[in-house]
């Protein structure tokens, strides 16, 4: 083989080896495990912390059994505990971790029940101007066992 070709081939071989080396360092080990992405990332996302524990964890133990049994039979049963009381996973894991008091303001109930043009007609809504003066809704309505006229 002619010397200039030898040099060229050696150089090419070196470039290929260097490419393979650099690539093996830069590409994470789990890349391509399941597809063209880093396989470890699936587990990283899976292992993120949960903040909303779910209503069953409130009534499961003896903790809030009475209020749970009232709520679960009534019309607000579709509204989960944490929708009003906020994320409770920390409190479930450690009962000493206090949960913030639920928002009992008129405006908070109004988020669902104040009249709105885009709301479904059959959904219970009140006109805040004419209904209940400025009293808080919970003054007359028990949010765990609401009554409807």
């Amino acid at each position: 083989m002619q010397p200039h070709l030898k040099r060229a081939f050696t150089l090419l071989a070196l470039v290929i080896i260097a490419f393979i080396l650099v690539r093996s360092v830069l590409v994470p080990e789990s890349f391509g495990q399941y597809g063209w992405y880093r396989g470890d990332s699936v587990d990283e996302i899976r292992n993120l912390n949960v903040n909303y524990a779910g209503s069953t964890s409130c009534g499961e133990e003896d903790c809030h059994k009475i209020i749970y049994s009232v709520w679960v039979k009534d019309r607000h049963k579709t509204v989960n505990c944490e929708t009003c009381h906020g994320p409770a996973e920390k409190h479930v894991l450690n009962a000493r971790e206090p949960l913030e008091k639920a928002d009992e303001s008129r405006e908070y109930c109004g988020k669902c029940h104040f009249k709105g043009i885009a709301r479904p007609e059959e959904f219970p809504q009140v006109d805040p101007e004419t209904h209940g003066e400025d009293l808080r809704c919970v003054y007359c309505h028990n949010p765990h066992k609401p009554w409807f006229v």
Partner: protein
Amino acid sequence: MDISRREFTKIGCKIIIGATAGTTIVESLITNSIAAENSPVKGGYNWEEHFWGYVVDTRKCIGCGRCANACKLENHVPFDEEVYRTWIERYRVKKTSLETREEEVVIDSPDGGIEGFVDDIPAEEIKKAFFVPKICNHCDNPPCVQVCPVGATYTTKDGVVLVDYEYCIGCRYCIQGCPYGARYFNTEKGTADKCTWCYHRITKGLLPACVQACPTGARKFGDMLDKDSEVNKIIDEERINLLKPDLGTKPKVFYIGLDREVK
């Protein structure tokens, strides 16, 4: 160049054999670290046994914004920025004269609907109005995954489109690529970000935070491989629609009661 037929064949064969062997060796060197392993994710959850789907019943949505609020709390989405993994849009179609037949639609989503909606157009001027919750469609043919230059976004075996926050270089190409505007740039992480259908929850047997928070059951989530799941029942029995079906993205969020104005 003078060359006999025998010589030509010899050289030709050598070149062909060399080229084949060479590429095979290089190929195997590159892929040897990447075991062609297709095992599912560890930890009591087999992602080959599930294929998730999502149903939105727009007729039930009351626009309370509890879903968007719960999503931000669950997934640490910044509250002070106008970015959402899920949000509620309000559509108000105005009354127009019968001659023009052109509809005037007012679409808004103040703070994603978290703080509620104000009726700032008199009721007499409105023909119809409704809410439409929006979320990542976790498309079966996702344009956002196609455009990622580094493989930092992908579809899991159970059909969820995720972002690798370690690997994302923050080029924002996927945000441009999503026809539904479901992706945003997370300034805290410096990466693209999006709804994961609460992958950390659904793989533990919990519901996505938005589905759990919805007080009217307008959002449903379930396994499309389970023939008794609520989602499958709705898909089989109800009249459902998709967002921008003509794009061929094959969304996995199914809508009930979708108006023609909703894109």
